[in-house]
């Protein structure tokens, strides 16, 4: 499964341009990573290599920083970000089964995005909607009282356009 959804030529030039204002000191790594992620949307391996070169660091060093901080992601966020709650109430109502169904159907694990960039899956600590457990959010909108079939149906409805998001897409 390919992780690099954007081809490096799409962002290489602009990234290198942005890097120019950094004096090349390796302590500026985190600032650089922030800016790169804002530009590309995430930090693919190619981008990490470019940054490593510019700051005179080993790519492994750059990757070790990217993997440490929560904020940095090596995977792009999908067009539809699906969050499943793993709090006790949802867990007991079968959120595990729902997670597994989504993982199987779309071929991704929690924290990953589908190859076509449409769906990314996230498991969160508690959404605070325990009365409706099991709960799932899609781009922030909450759906409750789910079962595996119902959950997948909702995601499909986003993918085939049956559910349209309000406001800015």
């Amino acid at each position, binding site marked *: 499964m390919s992780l690099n959804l954007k081809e490096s030529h799409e962002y290489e030039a602009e990234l290198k341009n942005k890097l120019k204002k950094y004096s090349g000191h390796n302590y500026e790594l985190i600032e650089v990573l*922030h800016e790169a992620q804002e530009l590309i949307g995430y930090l693919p391996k190619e981008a990490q290599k470019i940054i490593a070169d510019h700051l005179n660091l080993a790519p492994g060093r750059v990757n070790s920083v990217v993997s440490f901080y929560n904020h*940095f992601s090596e995977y792009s966020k999908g067009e539809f970000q699906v969050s499943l709650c793993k709090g006790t109430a949802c867990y*007991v109502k079968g959120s595990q089964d729902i997670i597994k169904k989504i993982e199987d159907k779309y071929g991704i694990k929690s924290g990953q995005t589908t190859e076509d960039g449409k769906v990314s899956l996230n498991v969160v*600590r508690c959404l605070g909607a325990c*009365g*409706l457990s099991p709960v799932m959010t899609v781009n922030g909108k909450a759906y409750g009282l789910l079962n595996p*079939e*119902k959950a997948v149906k909702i995601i499909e409805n986003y993918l085939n356009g049956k559910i349209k998001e309000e406001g800015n897409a």
Partner: protein
Amino acid sequence: MLKIEELEEIQKGLFDKYSGIKKDRIIIGMGTCGIAAGAEEILKTAQKEIKKLNLKDIEISITGCLGICAEEPIMEIRTNNERYIYGNLNPEKTREILKTHLGERNIINRWLIDQNSDFFSKQKRIVLKNCGNINPENIEEAIANHGYLGLAKALKSFSPNEVIEIIKNAKLRGRGGAGFSTGLKWELAANNSTQEKYLICNADEGDPGAFMDRSILEGDPHRLLEGMALAAYAVGASRGYIYCRAEYPLAIKRLKKAIKSAEGMGLLGENILDSGFDFRVNIRLGAGAFVCGEETALIASIEGKRGEPRSKPPFPSESGLFEKATVINNVETLANVPEIIRKGSEWFKKIGTEASPGTKVFALAGEIKKNGLVEVPMGTTPGEIIFDICGGLENDAEFKAAQTGGPSGGCIPIEHLNVPIDYDSLKELGTIMGSGGLIVMDTQTCMVDLAKYFIDFCKDESCGQCTSCRIGTTRMLEILEKISEGRGEKEDLDLLVEMGEVIKDSSFCGLGQSAPNPVLSTIRYFKDEYLDHIENKHCDSSVCASLFTSPCQNACPANVDVPLYIDAIRQGDYKRAYQIIQIENPLVLVCGRVCYNLCENACNRDGIDEALAIRELKRFASDYLLKNEDGFPIPEIEAEKDKKIAVIGSGPSGLTAAFYLRKKGYQVTIFEAETEVGGMLALGIPEYRLPKELLNEEIGVLTAMGVEIVVNTKIGEDILIEDLREEGFWAVYLAVGAQKDRDLNIEGSEEVEGYYSALDVLKELNQGHEFDFKDKKISVIGGGNAAIDTARNMIRLGAEEVNIIYRRTKNDMPAHKEEIREAEYERVNIYSQLNPHKIHSENNKIKKLECLEVKGGKFDQSGRRKPVEIKDSKLMIDTDIIISAVGQEVEDYFNKGKFKVELTKNNLIKSEGDFSTNVDWIFAGGDCVSGPSTVVESIQQGKKAASEIDKYLGGDGEVVKKENFERNISSPILEEQKSRVKMPTILLSERKRGFKEVEKGYSLDQAVEEASRCLRCDVKEKEEVI
């Protein structure tokens, strides 16, 4: 280049400029919280509306967070320095306010935030002084309010060492949580002879629930910059960094702007105020790692590395950022510095406590009415903050504990509400000050679940370097998961404590060293709750979902299967509904009318709209059967047993025990002292709540089962216990209740006419006795259900005035809240915080009741303030009748024979929780053991006592057969918001005319409508319903 002397002149000028603004200003609160609540739309609405109303000469500005987050979005209208602050806005209200206030010059009082309320008046705002009052993006307003004047004073008059001495003298301690002496920290760095030094501000604020620093950064960034400059001057640093978490984009934006403005005016950067002092500030972003709040991890992060803490020594003051001497201070610490320099250390020491002078900002969150930020002097108690300043708990819920210090801290239970907060006192309690987050929890919070949440957080945020923290937090989490899933073992608690101590001792940095705190603290104060999870597999707060089927059933003291019977009602099978309830609670009709409905407090539907009207539905099932079918179903009796059992007392506990024992096949006889059967159900609870006729229908179930009820037979008078033994009874269950009123012991009560005890009055009323209370003024003393029942009865007897006198606050009254509401609707006056002192009479007739006013003193063990009389605060109440309802005791006439049942020092029957007494064939349960309780709890007592008696007599003790019902969603669940169906009641005029039942009951349509709102939390696998 601005010079030091010039700044003072400029300040004066700007002060006059901004305080002298004649025109109207509209100031919108635009902190992150305000924006999240919709402030941007309010701003747009205001801009549009001003144009529409054609109002000239109006300035629209923004400000940071005032601290009263519960009222966001907020808009202030300021004219000539008069401030009118409107809260809880939406676009409609905003338009209305602008039209009325600015257009017509009329204030809308009811939407104003009371600036004189306790929330504001009890605070002492030093670091938050300007937040919510000035525009944080305008440096002029900061200077007008003395911004940078402290820096100017220091540069002009103090050497760096003198600045350090002032801060040392002031005893300013690190507000990030550790409480280390700021002055000392500076001194250590200053003494370091290296040339290059750094000053870092820790603005990482990673604690969940903490947002004090964010408020300062967004609301008054110049205060922080000034503090940083002063710190840098003191230690000899010329470069500064603000390490701000990436999750605060607005704070970062405002800081950048502030730095630029300050540099522009020569207040930051090279040669500040022409003094020769250089100090350049840069911002460094965090990237979502909680551990980077730890100073060495923070330094690593600024150096572009993984945020892994380093060993100390060397401390940062010796070798820190880029191996140079570094001082790291928290935002709030630095924000305190300018005022201390301006006003002096003596001024600072006058505030707070001796060991911790100054103030602390607390972020209140959780079940609190006024959530937000408060800045109070050190030494304020948690009780004052939670109840006086922030208005107490939401929905007047019962306080359980408050969490301080976030994932590194512990909890403060009821018994410590009076402890003055400072660094050292909190450590003694097993928690820490931490950043200042204060999360308030009610009885619906499970402490095991809370501990699990925090350790899960620490495990996620652990950097992974040291085994203790990395593996230790994981293992502790696993044990807590075990416990919350019902797989806990007795050894688990000891293991958690042992592991916790080891992890604290051996972890590399503060994160690991404090990660076990929430677990250790909750075990210390809530051990019983852990044991309940481990031994009984029970979660009282209905949170640990693996331990129960549905929260309503879990909360019911009698364990009634609520969702199942609600579904039966929905399907139209009312007999089945009754039978389901009867499995665990034989008094279906009774509870449908008078139960405390603890189930409703736990109902998950409350998260969508309102809790289900569970009690009302239960009532519907019983009423339907009475009206439309042949009455109530009689349960099957097991094989007849030869043994006779005597039950003394026909109240809920006795009736229930008799029911289950008879079901087991025993020959049961109930002995009742009065003529009427039902105990308090017949002689305490008034007719308008539980009509006698209907009560007797339900008792008919028992007689149909073959229970014998003998009335007018008082044990100890008509028959002795030993006689029962002789007559062949194998066991005796004492369910005599606590029916003796505790004596008020009030001066003047001897030998006067018109002084009664509530229980006597209720009993006699229910027995048909006539009282001459018409047109009389009646005072009822007490705050429980007996007092309310008495008072409401008096209304129906035609009293001219009925007053309830209670010595604590209305919120503290133990009576059912619904009952209190109904009493007030019926025009009962409730006077709280009054202590009755003396009865004044003339010719043996009562004339007045003398009372003393009472104020709340310290918090006592019940979490309520102890009533403390105010000297010389005498109040006289005109009254003809006084009825006392201040507590109940057991009448031990049963001890008149040769067998003596032991009593406790509170005059209740002594029983160790297994319903046994000192005589092995005499059992006791219900109010006579526990003191006055609720009907449903007495029912549960009766059920469990029956089980114990059965075991004593050689049975298996299984009085309730374990059944595995099939649970299916029979019809679609109503998911859209819909409020609950209101119970129809009779009007006040009808109520006053007699004792007609107040609640009318649901119609069939209403019952089905309400039943459809049930979320069926008991069904695990929700199949798609076609």
